């Protein structure tokens, strides 16, 4: 069973969002990393890049496949997780911690309220894997 922490917000594209002040930290879920398999490459934007909600901000590659990652909230990238360049595998081993991808200064902090709760996301993944 995939790990779905209670205190995060989730998207149907399998990203998670942790809100800290006016900023959103974004990564991919345990369910997502597990479906992808061994992550070998993560492509991230640059600090200062601006994204609309649900826009692709980069990609995650396993041996076999490339998957785009989308930001569930709009805003400007404040920081990226540069350590993923050398250690992409932490996306597998610690998707909600060291495997975070970007930190966004949210344009509309209220946007997170429209995302899925942990319980809703869990139901969503169950339905998807059936």
């Amino acid at each position, binding site marked *: 069973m995939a790990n779905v922490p209670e205190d995060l917000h989730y998207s149907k594209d399998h990203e998670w969002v942790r809100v800290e002040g006016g900023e959103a930290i974004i990564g991919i879920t345990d369910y997502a990393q597990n479906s992808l398999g061994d992550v*070998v490459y993560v492509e991230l934007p640059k600090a200062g890049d601006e994204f609309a909600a649900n826009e692709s901000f980069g990609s995650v590659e396993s*041996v076999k496949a490339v998957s785009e990652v989308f930001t569930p909230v709009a805003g400007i990238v404040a920081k990226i997780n540069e350590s993923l360049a050398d250690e992409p595998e932490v996306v597998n081993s610690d998707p909600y911690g060291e495997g975070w991808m970007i930190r966004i200064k949210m344009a509309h902090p209220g946007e997170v309220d429209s995302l899925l709760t942990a319980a809703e996301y869990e139901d969503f993944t169950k339905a998807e894997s059936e």
Partner: protein
Amino acid sequence: MVDFGGWDMPVQYPAGTIEEHLRTRTHAGLFDVSHMGEIDVKGADAIAFVNKLTSNDVGKLVDGQAQYTALTTPKGTVVDDLLVYRLAADHLLLVVNAGTTDKDWDWINSNHASEAVELNNVSSDYCQLALQGPDAQKILQPLTDVALSEIKYYHFTHGTVAGVAGIISRTGYTGEDGFEVYAPANHAEQLWNKILDAGETGTPTGVLPCGLAARNTLRLEAGLALYGHEIDETTTLLEANLGWICKLDKGEFIGREALARQKQEGVQRKLVGFEVTERGIARDDQEVLIDEERVGKVTSGSPAPFLKRNIGFAYVPVEYANVGQEMQIDVRGRLVCAQIVKPPFYKRPK
């Protein structure tokens, strides 16, 4: 699980593609390749008939020997690549790709004239398990009375494995030493489980069951072509660097004339191996640029888990097909630098 030529097959087992790949290079991996097709050719003209259809020289085989070859079109392009096993002077077994089995079967039948052969598509009779890696012989030997060390590369023998009678062949598609075992399909599970047990699966150095993804990365690292990627009905054997299986002097065969002409005139494009020289992973079908011009396409592109580099094959115009040539690959809109290298990317230590 994915659909692969009508077969439900695992892309990877729980260990994951990288671990499966590395274990096969360092110890052993077990692959269920029962999806491969088998076509039985029996009769006085078996060798002459298959020699007419394929580019390599079946006449060179002795009983108990296998050969890599191709079914060719009149243009010298590839209907399929396959292994021919010589069971006897009048009996051959063709092992073909899963996705092309029906096409091959039709092709072979449509080219059957007056030759005295009986053709049978026996694909569903056989299971095929490939045990690959430096520990393969050590794992398999206790399960059989056959002296495995006496089977030379690309040779085979009849024998029983874990009580199941079949064909034991020293062949594979990983660049490692190893065996492929052909047995009656209803014994597949028994054979699979016995080999995993004998190989102490579940231990850190034991055999790992491997899926399609590892099979692909292993063959790519070893510089082996995959039908539908490096070769198909639009690529000739010479373009694909498979001149070594074109025996133009063996006598007439389908495509011989076209290949002889192309050999004399020279190819226009050529399959090359490449290594990505900056960050990024090239993938199948991405475009190749040289001097800012789009000149070709990637046929297979992937991370190479053992080499820890990003590699691939691509077709480029022959004037650029030189080791060291710089090129760029259009990776979803980003141009990534790469360099032509000589395959195989990986060669096992002898």
